[in-house]
């Protein structure tokens, strides 16, 4: 039976004043908050709020591989598990992981692997668990971004972080950082991620229709947004330590 209120898509994704439905300009990001070291028991962890997205990432590793037959003799393995809670979406989701979650897990693994030196840790595994507590568009990008922070928080040597964002086309306009409604009702959706050590794209997916000029503009809009989000990641990583430095010096530097 249907729910009392159903998921409806509005006809127009821009308001009369030219702003998007949540009041943003075309290239404006939603409010983003990040924090590291939030899960006590994990080797490394991070939390992210991005619009209404609320996502935890936790890293365990290096540790023994379970089941043993997956262990590689000459290299460590990286496994990413992207999961959503039943209550993270409008209509309650079944608890067991579905195909979408497994696909996103694979895509995020491909983003994180190039950052690590797995060949230094033969026979071990690094596991990244991502839990989406509340979802609202661009979750795979938010998940990638917070997973990178959790790896850094764990003290695992990395060549750099990776940052992700989704750009898209709604009502024939190119916009940055699609919200849930914009993702569902829009015309095109391009999640992408950049690894900073070589400034190349490690995640790239696309659904919709676009021409060549739009595509070029897309990628340059994305690059600029990614830099802004990267700043937030760096600040979150350092904040814990800088706050303590300030605290002990009584506010003097």
């Amino acid at each position, binding site marked *: *039976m*249907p*729910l*009392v*209120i159903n998921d409806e898509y509005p006809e127009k994704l821009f308001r009369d004043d030219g702003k998007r439905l949540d009041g943003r300009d075309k290239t404006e990001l939603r409010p983003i908050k990040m*924090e*590291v*070291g*939030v*899960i*006590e*028991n*994990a080797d490394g*962890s991070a939390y992210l709020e991005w619009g*209404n997205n*609320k996502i*935890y*990432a*936790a890293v*365990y590793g290096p*540790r023994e591989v*379970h089941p043993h037959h997956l262990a590689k003799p000459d290299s460590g393995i990286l496994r990413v*598990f992207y*999961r959503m*809670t*039943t*209550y*993270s*979406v*409008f209509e*309650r989701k079944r*608890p*067991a992981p579905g195909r979408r979650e497994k696909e996103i897990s694979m895509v995020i693994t491909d983003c994180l692997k190039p950052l690590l030196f797995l060949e230094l840790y033969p026979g071990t595994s690094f*596991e990244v*668990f991502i*839990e989406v*507590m*509340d*979802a*609202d568009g661009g979750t795979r990008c938010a998940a990638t971004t917070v997973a990178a922070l959790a790896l850094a928080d764990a003290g695992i040597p990395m060549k750099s972080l990776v940052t992700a964002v989704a750009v898209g086309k709604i009502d024939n306009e190119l916009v940055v950082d699609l919200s849930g409604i914009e993702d569902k009702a829009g015309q095109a959706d391009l999640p992408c991620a950049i690894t900073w050590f070589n400034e190349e794209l490690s995640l790239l997916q696309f659904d919709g229709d676009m021409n060549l000029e739009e595509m070029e503009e897309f990628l340059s809009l994305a690059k600029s947004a990614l830099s802004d989000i990267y700043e937030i990641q760096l600040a979150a990583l350092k904040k*814990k330590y800088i706050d303590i430095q300030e605290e002990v010096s009584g506010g003097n530097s």
Partner: protein
Amino acid sequence: MEVIVKMMNIKRVISAIEKNYIIQNLRKEERFDDRGLWDYRKISIKHDVIASAEGSADVSLGKTRIVTGLKYEVGEPFPDMPNEGVCTVMAELLPIASPLFERGPPDEQSIELARVVDRGIRHADCVQTKKLCIEPNKAVYILFVDMYVLNYAGNLIDAGGISALTSLISSHIPEGKMEEGKLVWTGKYLDGEYIVKELPLVLTYGKIDNMIFLDPSLPEELICDGKISISVTEDKITSIQKSGEATFSFDEIKMLIKKSMEIGKKLRKDLNFWQYKVNYE
């Protein structure tokens, strides 16, 4: 964010000296975190934290942390209860919460957590299922209280109970009615005051040798010989669950039931659950 010094990372085995340390100190009624035998660790509650859920709570009991969300569906009632809605409780021990948890389908521990919390609620006249009927025999609300453990530091059950109750109290479920055979929204919401009557609390005790104590922390829980969880409302005992090999004498049980009523009353007063009711218009 404080960096906490951990007791030695508990993986598969607890060390003998840690076990002795806890037991010797318990004999002197001392616990490592400076608590008395009948004290809870610090409890903190944040309600209505998940935008996509129709009620939610983020509860910490010491370092144990559970985030619970409430979702609803509309469906047919059970044939033997045609005028009543349904409330069902589920729990998942997320692998991020502890190196001791593995991925996969619910195991014994998560099933125990879900069932004990469920029974505490069910037998306490907490959720008013008769008020969750839209049309008898045809359409009722099915409420899902889903608990996710984010960090495991002992005593999931009591934390789960508080988070489940708070989620229900913070509920804002769209009110539906049948109009010409179709389900429509009245524009209003069912809230915690409508759905919840009694406020059950579950209290869990650990037993080591002949020493009993409230709210076992992780090391205490891992070495204890047995546990007992007692659910209480203001004036009734609604459910009991004993687990583990330890046995409890009749006197011990009577003492614990009396203690649970007392501690339950005080805790209910301190936590002041009705402050978590929300108003959605």
